[in-house]
């Protein structure tokens, strides 16, 4: 009886999982079909007539008047630089806020907490104008904008973690003649590692997929990230090659899946840690 129930449960779970991955499979299948067959035979496997081989991928590289690899490169550059800058600058600030704990520090801290509940639309226009006039509209400078708008959550999480570290370690370093800068980089920063990973994962998931901020801040005729590129494939008038679109969607989903497989444990921890803040 119990065994039977167990088997039934496994079968139900298996079926649901299969349904769950069907959309991704559908993309993979359609990426190998010729344009006209994507709409008419969406759920059929490519056959001799409808198969396009790797043509969609070749076409996809230049499709949409912008090279896909260029947008992939900019996505990597923007994500890596922004996440790096966020981790460094906000952990430094959080350590200061947690340890000095003056009135000004508290004001900064509560401003950060406040910024977490402000939706992007609230600052959309003014932020993109400010970024424009300060020339923060390139992939190398947009990290400053990401640090600014993403500081809230990171400062909040780092400050919480620093407060849980015993002060004695830093005091010992200080008594041994270690200045604050060295104390931070050689003693505190390594101890922050679990939170660095959690915050890093959350910020990667945000920035890699972000569309609205880069589309408003970057000069999109020069610089496109993957989400901008995908959106402008369909946004552009005229014929849209669905086969090539599916090939590009597949190419942008694959790195995400690989990233997940390599860091599953950290992602789960990051999500749980980030959620607790609500």
């Amino acid at each position: 009886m119990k065994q039977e129930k167990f088997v039934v449960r496994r079968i139900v779970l298996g079926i649901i999982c299969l349904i769950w991955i069907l959309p991704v499979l559908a993309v993979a299948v359609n990426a190998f079909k010729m344009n006209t067959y994507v709409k008419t035979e969406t759920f059929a496997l490519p056959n001799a007539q409808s198969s396009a081989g790797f043509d969609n991928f070749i076409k996809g590289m230049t499709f949409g008047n912008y090279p896909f690899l260029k947008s992939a490169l900019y996505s990597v550059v923007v994500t890596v630089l922004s996440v790096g800058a966020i981790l460094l600058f906000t952990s430094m600030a959080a350590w200061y806020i947690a340890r000095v704990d003056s009135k000004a520090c508290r004001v900064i801290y509560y401003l950060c907490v406040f910024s977490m509940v402000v939706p992007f639309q609230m600052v959309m226009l003014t932020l993109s104008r400010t970024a424009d006039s300060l020339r923060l509209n390139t992939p190398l400078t947009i990290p400053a904008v990401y640090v600014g708008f993403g500081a809230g959550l990171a400062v909040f999480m780092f400050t919480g973690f620093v407060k849980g570290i015993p002060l004695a370690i830093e005091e010992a370093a200080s008594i041994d003649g270690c200045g604050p800068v060295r104390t931070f980089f050689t003693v505190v920063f390594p101890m922050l590692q679990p939170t660095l990973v959690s915050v890093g994962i959350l910020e990667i998931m945000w920035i890699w997929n972000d569309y609205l901020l880069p589309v408003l801040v970057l000069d999109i005729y020069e610089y496109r990230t993957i989400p901008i590129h995908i959106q402008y494939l369909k946004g552009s008038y005229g014929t849209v090659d669905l086969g090539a679109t599916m090939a590009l969607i597949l190419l942008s989903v694959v790195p995400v899946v690989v990233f997940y497989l390599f860091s599953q444990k950290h992602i789960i921890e990051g999500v749980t840690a980030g959620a607790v803040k609500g």
Partner: protein
Amino acid sequence: MKPTILTKPMRKWAWLFLGPMLVCFGIGFVWPFLHGTYLSFCRFLLVRDAEWIGGGNYAAAFSDPSFRSAFGFTAVFAVVSVILINIPAFAAALALNRKFRGRNLYRAVFFMPNLIGGIVLGHLWSMIFDGILAGFGTSILLDAKLGFWGMIIVLLWQQVGYMMIIYIAGLQAIPADMMEAAEIDGASGSQKLFRIIIPNMMPAITICLFLTLTNGFKLFDQNLALTAGQPFIQQADGTTVRTTEMLALNIYNTFYSQGPSNRGIAQAKAVIFFVTVAGISLIQLVATRRKEVQQ
């Protein structure tokens, strides 16, 4: 906190530790927020100049039929998505909490869609909905009801795994001896669920409910990529109501596709949007605090 041995030398380095973050925070948040709030009370004259007009933009925003329609659509959407995401997520967490072979694979499958961005998700599902609906001679862009449920399906597919992870963390925090005691006393499955699991999971449940609620309210990428507000309905007074346009997209369209003269109204809408979202977060904070006191 009392000053420690560290405080004094650290203060000398304040510029280094706080400086970079504060400069960015000023550019990326504080100034845009203050300036945006100010502009919501202004009329935009040329591209850059603005003139104070008081609350006129707010009156215009509230009487804009497209904004009201978006507000109603978003509120209903958010509530429906809360229910339809959390029930399966909770069930999945219960099913995937016990130990068995392949458990991580199942969890991975449910969680994976969460890593795909809203824009890519929207276009991915757009192809699938087209494939299905073409057989019925319709399209997701032709019927607001289809658009609504289409976006619900996309959001459900994306977020069930995320909420499931939070619920699993909540389940694992339930003391094992409590469950054991219930089992020894012969508690039935539903008794265990309603008397032990759910009461002990209240923090996780609160987090998930509010997370899905604010996510529903703030939805933008999926909305833009899947329906972009279609189908459009022409009103008698010449204005257009985009029937599946949600709040964030409505604000975006008011900012960028209706000319600079409407930007003051768009900014007022953004403030209303912010107050709504912040209000939800505030209610959550109060709700969580109260629970903590009870325990």
